[in-house]
């Protein structure tokens, strides 16, 4: 009952925050200097009077601002995110439908890498607390999360294209291959697997490795830090002393009683990890010429493609806010004492 009420309250808050983001983008988009049409369609707006007319009609740009706001909100809710001048006036929603799965593929792989690397090193650091292993791991994760994603990306690019030429450094798949069609799930790798096109699936997966590794290297430190510290805290708890007193060897105490209890604190930071990975994808996809939504956001920014900037920011924000929601709910579920007052 309490959990349900918490869930509903948390859900309502997430929806409200999303509404605030939408309102913010609406207000800001009306601050674009100069002619609104020109701002939204680019400097060449005058060359396409028909498109401009369509735009005015579609967004009710001659109506009072509150009417525009209502149309804007209802349009957004129906998935109408405008049209994208930088992509030849195709609907933004279709570009996002095409690019978002690619970004999610990278983020998913990077998330797995983060958990493996972060948790593994965190456990090692806690196990060998205050030894040179701990120090070495600390230097490694501090260096990682103190670096901008593009710096780590450039280091990886230089190393892998000048010295270790094993993994591909750019693109979604080798240009000689053909993307699987028809698209069933929207995720090219899954589509290829479903259709039995294993060479494509393998090729596309290999192209994910370096960008995902870059994201993982700037993010895993968050997990290592929390894993290490919560393990060290847990290992001083009374039940650990009890476990030791009943004669369990140190290894069993650590992995049976220490680790599961320390894992709860990792739920809270998983949303932080997702935020890092998603915002990092803007830089990393550009560097590795990976045509995901981060790349789309980057090129939209360079080309002043306002509808695309607004929409990609909104989609990123929506994913981040949803992950925060999920993490909060998971946390409350795993540890009911904490949030349910």
């Amino acid at each position, binding site marked *: 009952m309490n959990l349900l009420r918490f869930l509903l309250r948390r859900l309502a808050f997430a929806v409200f925050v999303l509404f605030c983001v939408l309102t913010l983008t609406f207000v800001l988009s009306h601050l674009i200097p100069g002619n609104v049409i020109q701002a939204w369609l680019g400097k060449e707006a005058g060359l396409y009077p028909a498109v401009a007319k369509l735009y005015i009609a579609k967004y009710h740009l001659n109506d009072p601002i509150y009417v525009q706001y209502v149309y804007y909100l209802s349009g957004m809710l129906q998935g109408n995110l405008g049209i994208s001048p930088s992509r030849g006036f195709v609907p933004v929603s279709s570009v996002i439908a095409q690019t978002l799965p690619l970004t999610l593929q990278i983020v998913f792989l990077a998330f797995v890498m983060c958990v493996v690397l972060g948790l593994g090193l965190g456990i090692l650091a806690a196990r060998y607390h205050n030894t040179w292993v701990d120090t070495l791991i600390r230097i490694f994760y501090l260096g990682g999360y103190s670096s901008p994603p593009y710096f780590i990306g450039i280091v990886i690019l*230089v190393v892998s294209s000048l010295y270790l030429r094993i993994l591909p450094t750019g693109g979604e798949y080798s240009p000689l291959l053909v993307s699987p069609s028809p698209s069933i799930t929207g995720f090219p790798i899954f589509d290829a697997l479903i259709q039995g096109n294993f060479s494509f699936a393998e090729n596309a997966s290999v192209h994910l490795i370096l960008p995902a590794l870059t994201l993982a290297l700037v993010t895993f430190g968050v997990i290592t830090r929390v894993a290490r510290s919560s393990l060290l805290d847990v290992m001083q708890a009374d039940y650990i002393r009890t476990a030791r007193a009943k004669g369990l060897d140190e290894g069993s105490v650590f992995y049976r009683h220490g680790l599961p209890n320390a894992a709860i604190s990792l739920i809270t930071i998983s949303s932080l990890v997702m935020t890092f990975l998603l*915002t990092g994808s803007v830089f990393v996809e550009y560097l590795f010429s990976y045509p995901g939504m981060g790349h789309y956001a980057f090129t939209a920014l360079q080309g002043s493609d306002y509808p695309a900037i607004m929409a990609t920011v909104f989609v990123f924000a929506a994913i981040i806010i949803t992950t925060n929601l999920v993490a909060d709910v998971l946390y409350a579920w795993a540890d009911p004492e904490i949030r349910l007052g």
Partner: protein
Amino acid sequence: MDSKNQGEPTGGIESRVRGAWNLMTRSKEAIIGLAIILTFLLTAIVMEIGALLNIQLTPYPANPLPNQTSAILLPPSLVHPFGTDNLGRDVFSRILAATPYDFMIGFIVVGTAVVIGGLLGGMAGLRGGLLDEFLMRFTDIFFALPVLLIAIVIGAILGGGITNMSIALMVTWWPPYARLARGESLKVAHQNYIEAARLSGQKSHRILVRHVLPNISGTMLVYATLDIGTVILVYSGLTFLGLGNRPPAPDWGQMVAAYNGYLLTDPWLALIPGLVISMGVIGFSLLGDGVKDTLGIR
């Protein structure tokens, strides 16, 4: 003056600053971190003074006229420690010239966040009740906004540049400080010296500024110091996206983006500004880790 109030810790803000300094110099990694930070800080101050007085303090002009440039794409040497770029500009000079913006923005944004967060959170904790509820829900909303994304939208529409980006970051950076200040001020809100100030008829904003804020400044200061590196990191991302200084004025992130095209032939061009960003931020990370170890926070 404050020390007259019974129960109030003596010494006011100076002793807290001294306490924070002691914290920062107790562990080895914190000292290394502090040394890095002070090096950057000193460079930034010297460069800013040079810029204000219109004296060229960099070895070469950061944005030379075409006929002042040296040879293009020279590798690092004694004359050009970081080499020269595609337009023959000395990379070392450009990095120095960017320091006042790219490093100092951390102090400016965090400083503002401390003030906004301290006032809102301090007031919420002190007054309690409906005002507390309202201020904290307001904080929750801002807390949930993804900082980098909001800054990108603001930059895309209102234009980039250090002023707009500072404002964008200031608007979104304060919520953790409001929460921190509220928690801390709740702790002191029912102490004798606050009650005494209330009974003597002081207005709550006066109590806030005179009694609450000085007493929570220590915790805020430690947290703020550790947070500056994060701002530098986020801003370097914004400059990489082209939302920083207008070229030809240099920015670290913008330099990495601009030199990205020479990665295969002259990799140091993009690597060095990137490394400089990492170094600056690592200074704060080391300091943060050291201070947390000393305090026993894990």
